[in-house]
């Protein structure tokens, strides 16, 4: 994908994600930057870090040493944990969504049992529209090969009258877009 289009699509994604009340930041893809971003975003809370399904685990090498990080949670911890961190295998520009694989890793519990979900996505994997997930042209057909959830903003309901965010799922969704260093773009 040419860089110019990529820039436009990233901007569109950020605007759409904000519209559905997610918070978004964009950082360079290295372990130091991600560590800084996650330390700030987790606000010193205990967090469940799910093994990434698609991102390079190396990116988490510094943050995973943080004393607040749980990688292999107990049942008790799973039942009470407030914040979860996962990666996403793609994001959607028109809707501001992130797509989360459902695999052996703990991204499902980290994003459905918690109050706050922090999700990290590679800027190269942002696609234009929801329907593109199911096209072989995008994502090397990854969207056709797995179970996943498309997450668009925080959990919400209008069943009790006014719109309320944070129901059974997280009331807060924070998205961190990582950019691979120039030169590796498009590789």
């Amino acid at each position: 994908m040419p860089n110019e289009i990529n820039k436009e699509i990233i901007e569109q994604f950020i605007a759409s994600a904000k519209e559905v009340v997610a918070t978004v930041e964009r950082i360079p893809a290295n372990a130091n930057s991600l560590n800084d971003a996650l330390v700030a975003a987790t606000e010193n809370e205990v967090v469940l870090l799910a093994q990434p399904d698609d991102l390079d685990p190396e990116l988490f090498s510094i943050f995973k040493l943080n004393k607040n990080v749980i990688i292999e949670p107990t049942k008790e911890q799973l039942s009470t944990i407030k914040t979860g961190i996962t990666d996403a295998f793609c994001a959607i520009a028109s809707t501001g969504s992130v797509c989360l694989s459902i695999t052996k890793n703990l991204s499902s519990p980290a994003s459905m049992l918690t109050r706050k979900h922090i999700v990290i996505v590679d800027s190269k994997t942002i696609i234009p529209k929801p329907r593109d997930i199911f096209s072989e042209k995008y994502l090397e057909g990854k969207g056709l090969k797995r179970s996943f959830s498309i997450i668009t903003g925080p959990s919400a309901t209008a069943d009790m009258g006014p719109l309320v965010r944070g129901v059974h799922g997280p009331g807060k969704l924070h998205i961190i877009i990582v950019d691979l260093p120039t030169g590796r773009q498009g590789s």
Partner: protein
Amino acid sequence: MENINDYKIHPRQVADKSSKETLKKAIKLALDVESDAVRLNTQSFNTNRYKAVKKIDDYEELKDRARQIKENSIQNLPQLLDKLTETIEHRGGKIFLAKSKKDATDYIKNVCLSHKAKLIVKAKSITSEEIGLNSVLEKQGFEIAETDLAEFILQVSKEQPSHNVAPAIHRSRESISELFKRNFNTDKSLETGEELTEFARDILRKKFLSADIGISGANLIAAEEGTILLVESEGNIRLTTQLPAVHIAIAGIEKIIPSKKDFGIFIELLAASGTGQPLTSYTNILEPPLDLPILNLNGRKDKQREFHLVIIDNGRMQMREDKDLKEALYCIRCSACMNSCANFQAVGGHAFGGEVYTGGIGGAWTVGTTDILEKGRFAELCTGCSRCVPNCPVRIDIPKLNTTIKNRLIKAAGGPSLQKSFFGNFSILGKFASITPGLSNWVSNLSISRTIMEKIIGFEKRRKIPRFANKTLVKQYKEYRRTNNLKSKTNELTSGLVLLADVYTNYNNPNVGMAAIKVFDKLGMSITLSKLLDEGRASQSQGLVQLATKRALKLATYLEELIDDGNEIIVAEPSVLALFRYDYKKLLNNDKQFDKLANHTYDPIEYINMLIVNCKLDLTKYIANSDLPKPKIFYHGHCQMKTIGAGYVASEFFQRLDYTVDVSNVECCGMAGSFGFKKEYYAISKNIGDDLIHQIIRSDSFDSNTIILASGTSCREQIGDELNNPIYHPIEFLQKILK
């Protein structure tokens, strides 16, 4: 508004609409205690949907593709089911085809028994309501926790769903607050939306953490890959399908499509059409049994994930063989038809719905899945206004489904009621009444006549009876041509324009017809008047399909001759114009003839506007000069005119002539032909009318001199019932401002 929690009738008591009496009670219940919440919520969905679909740049094309996929899927259903069975079993899941409700509930009960389950968490599934799953499982001693907050409310209130997407749409925040306080012994404050949500979440989180089995529905199922699509906002579907090791999904057989490659189209259409969002918070694409660790937070020692897909027939394969009801199987349950329906906005699904299925699409589903025609009686609440038609993402002709049900009910009753014959044969009535209109109007307005009419044909006493004009349009036209020293050209085939003498314009509004004649005369265009023929609108809306078809065929043949002779047809009454451009497609069942009629029939303002746009007419030189300030205009677009895409031509036309025009966004005036005259529907009709009246009087420029424009006869009747402002057909107003 009275309090729903204390109301004398419980919605369950009036869920089955087999008897007319129950339908009447349900309407009263809805108008007394549910209308405010239903209107607020459906109108908000409706507004958001219009915004959301505007953002889909290929919306029309997407709808065509979705329709095509659904048509093909229903066509190839047996093969798709075979394929799906193979895929699910190959992946280690179990699939069960349930012919009946009992087959389905027996199977599910046995799965629950085999796992020694105690607690079952459930995500929203209308199909599970259809098979009566909860009561079967509860009788067996299982605890069922409905986890969708709307379903949770309904479990507490013991009410049936009132809407497909938001099943507790009939309840306000205040009524939920009171319901919870009465049912739960708690010190917590339960006033705000946040407090209520948090309270329910806490209860349900405990259920999730200890549940043995999760039961969900499915929005779509892909046969090729065995993938299920589940869309939601709250996150309860994720927990239901992923936390317990055992997942049972229930889905109607019509949910199967060939491949998940097509999910994208439906995902985009569902979210936009349903809640008006780009996507709902969670769109789950699952290929269970999932390759996800079993957490056993419930204390069990389950070692393997288990998946059961229960496919429900329960009448669907019979619907597939029914050439009319088959159409309902394309439904993806987005609820756009309910949100865009003025009648539904007034009463919701407890009146406009049955025990499970609601709204315009609900009649066909109720009849199809119960095999009891009378239960679909609420189809009578469909007035045929057609606002659902352009908003359905799979292009289902919902009004036609309801006409079918009305027609079958008439046949089952051994023939039409006096009321249906009366309203369905308006042309015959008009003919006799117009012999001595003064006498007819005098007699029909006598108090004794009104009482008799109300008793015998159910003509609401409080409505003004449409006045029969002293001189019909046909008579006035002949006289006009004589006095203008012009030869009457009635009934002659001449090239040029022909104004259709439809029954409403002829008997009730000849002034509108004459305005059209005089405007075209002034603009120097040759116009004549057609023969008087019944176009079949009234009979169609009463469900008298055979009569409507007969009338349509006769009129179409006549109009086709006129068109072949080089004429364009001007139609002043919008419900009649919509016949030629929409309904006749199915009534005539002759595409060539239909296309000809559709392409050569125009609303008068629409025709003039087209000439202006094509630079064939400079209207400004015909407009009278006036130093007086221009009056302000409020315009209400006719429902069926909006559906054929001409709903806002007149408002834009007068805006371009520098008038300030406020426009209503009410889908339909609520009069809808004869609907508002009927005793049993008068209250709904007035309720909808009030919505329009409020919009008019609250509009920025409104005062007692504001001119109200509405092209529909019944819209003008509805507005004129409440306001004393001048009310015109747009062509009448144009006549007034010409030199």
